[in-house]
């Protein structure tokens, strides 16, 4: 009939396309045969090696039992099937070829084709050079991490330089210049705050607020300098030149130490997403309340920097959302834009107005924009880890 011709054509095209895209090397390029040998019996599932190079991996499954068996390569969660061979009759060997990236997996034989199967952990190492791994998401995740790592390193470099300038001005008693640099330099810190906070010893000595000091803890870092630059009207003794010099020196030394440690940090898409969420929580708990910069009232600089950091992490992860979480992506995009529009209203010159110049209504408005962004942002980790 009339419908058959187009159907035939579709079928033929589909089959050819599948065959072409699905074709892969029968023998992996790695040395020798390189295949992983599996022997399945009634009560055992012997795997010749627990690790193999990723990329194109070949499993040769031998059924040495008396029942029909199946072999599965499962993802780390034990649920997603990466590859399987069904119907391996007794006495037979079948091959399974999968294209899989580096990572943890689980092997399983199912003699009699029932139940969970006999499982074992299995690991794939990095694919040999030149071998393409089709797991696009893995690649997208890697790109995101590479981009974000570069961003963190760039920010930390600017922080080191900026801290040096600030420390010089502060130690030299150039209060006007130090005040000018204070908020701008701190932005480099605030943009990568979750990274800095991952070092539990450095964060308090660089960024502790007076109100949060533990008994007996010596107050150092940015907020100590802040109080001296914007001193309260009464009951405060200004730092001596020597005290200022010592504080400045320590800030430079601690920041250099931070920069050194950051070089070795490793991220994955989930840490990026969590970091973005943490940054926004910072805004919600510290900046929106005006607690962070209680003397200088430069909270909006920090606010902007936290949002920047979260937005960069999100934008780096964006390709992972395309298709799989397009709705979330659009929502995040809109909420970031909304929040930025609000912040832009409070810009003055290169910086912002002081936080104590905001009306209560404006603060509430900012607060609800932050909450509106925090809600979809909390779903980012799950979406990129898919």
């Amino acid at each position, binding site marked *: *009939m009339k419908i058959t011709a187009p159907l035939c054509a579709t079928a033929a095209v589909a089959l050819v396309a599948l065959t072409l895209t*699905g*074709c892969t*090397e029968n023998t992996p390029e790695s040395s020798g045969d390189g295949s992983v040998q599996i022997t399945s019996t009634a009560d055992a599932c012997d795997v010749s090696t627990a690790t193999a190079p990723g990329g194109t991996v070949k499993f040769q499954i031998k059924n040495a039992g008396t029942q029909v068996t199946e072999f599965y390569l499962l993802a780390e969660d034990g649920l997603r099937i990466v590859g399987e061979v069904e119907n391996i009759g007794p006495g037979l060997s079948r091959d399974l070829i999968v294209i899989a990236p580096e990572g943890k997996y689980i092997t399983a034989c199912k003699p009699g084709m*029932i*139940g969970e199967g006999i499982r074992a952990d299995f690991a794939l190492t990095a694919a040999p050079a030149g071998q393409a791994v089709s797991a696009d998401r893995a690649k997208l995740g890697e790109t995101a991490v590479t981009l974000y790592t570069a961003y963190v390193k760039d920010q930390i470099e600017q922080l080191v330089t900026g801290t040096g300038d600030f420390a010089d001005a502060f130690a030299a008693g150039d209060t006007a210049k130090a005040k000018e640099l204070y908020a701008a330099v701190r932005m480099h810190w605030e943009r990568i705050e979750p990274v800095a906070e991952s070092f539990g010893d450095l964060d308090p000595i660089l960024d502790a607020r007076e109100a949060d000091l533990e008994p007996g803890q010596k107050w150092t870092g940015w907020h100590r300098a802040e109080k001296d630059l914007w001193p309260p009207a009464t009951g405060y003794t200004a730092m001596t030149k020597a005290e200022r010099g010592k504080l400045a020196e320590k800030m430079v030394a601690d920041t250099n130490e931070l920069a050194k440690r950051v070089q070795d940090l490793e991220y994955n898409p989930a840490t990026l997403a969590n970091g973005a969420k943490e940054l926004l929580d910072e805004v919600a708990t510290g900046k929106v309340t005006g607690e962070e910069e209680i003397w200088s009232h430069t909270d909006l600089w920090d606010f902007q920097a936290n949002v920047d950091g979260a937005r960069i992490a999100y934008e780096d992860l964006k390709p992972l959302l395309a298709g799989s979480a397009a709705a979330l992506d659009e929502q995040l995009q809109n909420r970031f834009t909304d929040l930025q529009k609000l912040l832009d209203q409070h810009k003055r010159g290169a910086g912002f107005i002081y936080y104590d110049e905001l009306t209560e209504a404006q603060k509430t408005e900012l607060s609800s924009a932050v909450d509106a962004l925090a809600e979809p942002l909390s779903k980012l980790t799950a979406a990129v880890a898919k």
Partner: protein
Amino acid sequence: MTANFLIGLREGLEAVLVVVLLLAYLKKSGRTHLYPRIFAGVGVAVAISLAFGAILTFGPRGLTFEAQEAIGGGLSILAVGFVTWMVFWMATASRTMASDLRGKVDTAADGSSWALVLVAALAVGREGLETALFLWAATRATGETWEPLLGAGLGILVAVGLGVLLHRGAVRINLSKFFTWTGAALIVVAGGVLAYGVHDLQEAGMVPGLHNLAFDVSHIISPSGFLGTLLKGVFNFSPATTWLEAIVWVLYVVPVMFIYLRRVNAVKPPQAAVQPAEATA
């Protein structure tokens, strides 16, 4: 031996069933001269499957797991489309036959029956690649006996034998009942094939819900046992069925069966009147 025999039997039954019903239909409608077309379709499917299997087993390139599942699942769903079309085409054609005299079957119907070649090819081909890979693996089993190959071969032979018996039985049923039952049987079979195709796509990760089981009776009906084999071979019944498979099966079988039975009932009276004894030959 038994296990490999059962595999052959199951794969054989899956392929043979649709072909038998096709042949019986042609016989009933007095168009045995179209038999070669069906066999041509089967032959092409077997040849392609064996060739593909041989290339993938012995050649330098293999097929990734995703591609195998996608081909299996895709062909199954395609086969369902064709079988459904065929069931309704038969119902319509039988109406024409009822009003015309035997031998005056219109040529248009004959022309369209080229599509039967495709239906036969798809029915065999969708399981063909899997079976071929199995058979070639059996021939390659170095240092082993030829038992797996013999077992699977016997299984396929028995399936074909059952097909022949079924064919004979089907040809003996009276005409009007025959059309109703073959059509209905094909719809149930096609529903199973559809669910099976969906399962393949679930395993390939193209469709979600692989682990949401509607029911799991694999402890009662062992998938490797004789009953499991038979149910799987005939209805594509899986002892552990996912919700999506179950839903797809119901959504296909119930409305299609309803429409089909209504249409068949509408043509029943004239058919019974003309029912010619010589049609059974």
